[in-house]
């Protein structure tokens, strides 16, 4: 089997006396969509922050593409081929949709210490940005400032920017948060389309979406992994039902 895109071992993060992430080991391969679920406060976003370099782990190890990256700063992790999207939309509000994607794509130039040629004349950067816009189905909205987008479109832009950096591993923190049914369906389609070419780690609350998308599920409770396996196995797992699924059946 190929090397996993992402592997963690005994990953732990303490905030003072609180252990937000406790002894987490997981793997994610290209072509795999690994969903992490769990009740609020289970440590899912903290886990993503540890993987993306937003936070440094207290102990344990993060490996990307077979390389130890524990404690590397976020920009270095990004350059290794990791794209991250945020739970709370995190885009350049005053830039247009295209400029958001163009700037994201520009990050893949060997260096942006270039001072003379206008940025908009870098063909390969424009092409990568256009492709991301198209993938995220934002065609026709390129020149709209991000502030003028609907919530759903902003979420799409968030993913488009992540894609414009041509990541191999995608870390998606609740891409469906706050979306209406129609918008959600569109995003689920987009994620399905992306799944074959990428390794994806997804944190999500929407159980319908998770079970429709995920090839592997990890359930977290109080910072630790409760169970991990195929969606069928997780659905059948009694512990999980008690701890999590059962209590949120009504959702």
């Amino acid at each position: 089997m190929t090397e996993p895109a992402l592997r963690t071992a005994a990953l732990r993060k303490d905030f003072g006396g609180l252990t937000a992430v406790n002894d987490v080991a997981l793997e994610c391969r290209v072509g795999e969509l690994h969903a992490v679920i769990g009740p609020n406060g289970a440590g899912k976003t903290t886990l993503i922050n540890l993987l993306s370099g937003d936070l440094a782990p207290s102990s344990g190890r993060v490996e990307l593409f077979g390389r130890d990256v524990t404690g590397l700063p976020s920009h270095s992790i990004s350059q290794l081929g990791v794209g991250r999207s945020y739970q709370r939309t995190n885009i350049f509000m005053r830039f247009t949709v295209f400029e958001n994607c163009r700037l994201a794509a520009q990050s893949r130039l060997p260096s942006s210490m270039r001072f003379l040629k206008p940025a908009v004349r870098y063909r390969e950067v424009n092409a990568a940005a256009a492709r991301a816009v198209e993938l995220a189905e934002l065609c026709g909205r390129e020149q709209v400032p991000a502030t003028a987008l609907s919530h759903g479109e902003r979420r799409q832009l968030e993913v488009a920017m992540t894609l414009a950096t041509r990541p191999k591993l995608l870390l998606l923190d609740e891409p469906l948060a706050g979306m209406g049914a129609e918008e959600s369906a569109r995003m689920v389609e987009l994620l399905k389309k992306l799944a074959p070419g990428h390794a994806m780690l997804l944190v999500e609350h929407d159980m319908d979406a998770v079970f429709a998308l995920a090839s592997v599920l990890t359930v977290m409770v109080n910072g630790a992994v409760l169970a991990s396996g195929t969606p069928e196995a997780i659905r059948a797992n009694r512990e999980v039902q008690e701890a999590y699924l059962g209590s949120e059946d009504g959702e």
Partner: protein
Amino acid sequence: MERQPRALQVVLLAGLVALVAFPLVGEKFYLQFITKVMIMAIFAMSLDLLVGYTGLVSLGHALFFGVAAYALMLLTPEYQAAGFWTSLGASLGIAALAALVVGFFVLRTSGIYFIMVTLAFGQMTYFYVHDSSHLGGSDGKYIYVRPVLEIAGWSPFDLEKPSHFYYVALAMMVLVYFSLRVLLASPFGRVISGIKENEHRMRMLGFATFRYKLVCFVLAGALAGLAGWLVAAHDGLVNPEMLSWHQSGQLLMMVILGGMGTPSGPILGAAALKVLELLFQGWTKHWQLLLGGFIVLSVLLLPRGLAQLFESWRRD
């Protein structure tokens, strides 16, 4: 390059024509006055690169202006002229080096802390210069002869002549203006605006933002150095006040008054502040009261600066 509003383009072009023609009719006093305004405009543009485009509000920018001015003083032998390019190069170099060192520390902070540490570095240098007798102490020192440019015995201009100095300052100002516009449209320029807008996201996109901020800080420092060199050569005098936080503060006022993050704002701001200062000084000894009142009014009415006056004409 980003297109400017048509009205502003017309105003800028008319202004340029007027500036080019002015020495044909203007008196020496006004020639020297406008030369100073143009130098301050260069200085203000350098600060706007930090404040307006990168979102780094510095209250210590006079440091780089001052060290470049003092560098010219130190490089000028008594009663002899310093070389034009050597002294200019040395002044820019020392300002850039100072910016590299200061930037390395201050860019680890942000927001209010950034303001405080830039202020601290500025004041440290101010007091050092103020209390150093070999630098002239609180009185400063004179530069008796202006730098001379000679190419094989021929010199294209003579800085001792007010009109020549005027055109050198004008050429430098225009050069800095267009260089900054090219810079801001480049990939580097897009990175710094991204940093201003959302630095965290820039890092997450893979940009090592510290590096870009440091380069930007050094560029801004070097440009401030250019202004410092010009002022010292023009006035024939350096003194510690050039490094003081008053200088930094006045500069920040010019940028805010003119319009942060607009290419022509700093020029408009520098011109407005200097012209009003001159005007009000002629009226009353309480001129600072008038100037203060004007600034309050203009910030209230034109929060995006004087450049905003021209924006509203955009759809003519």
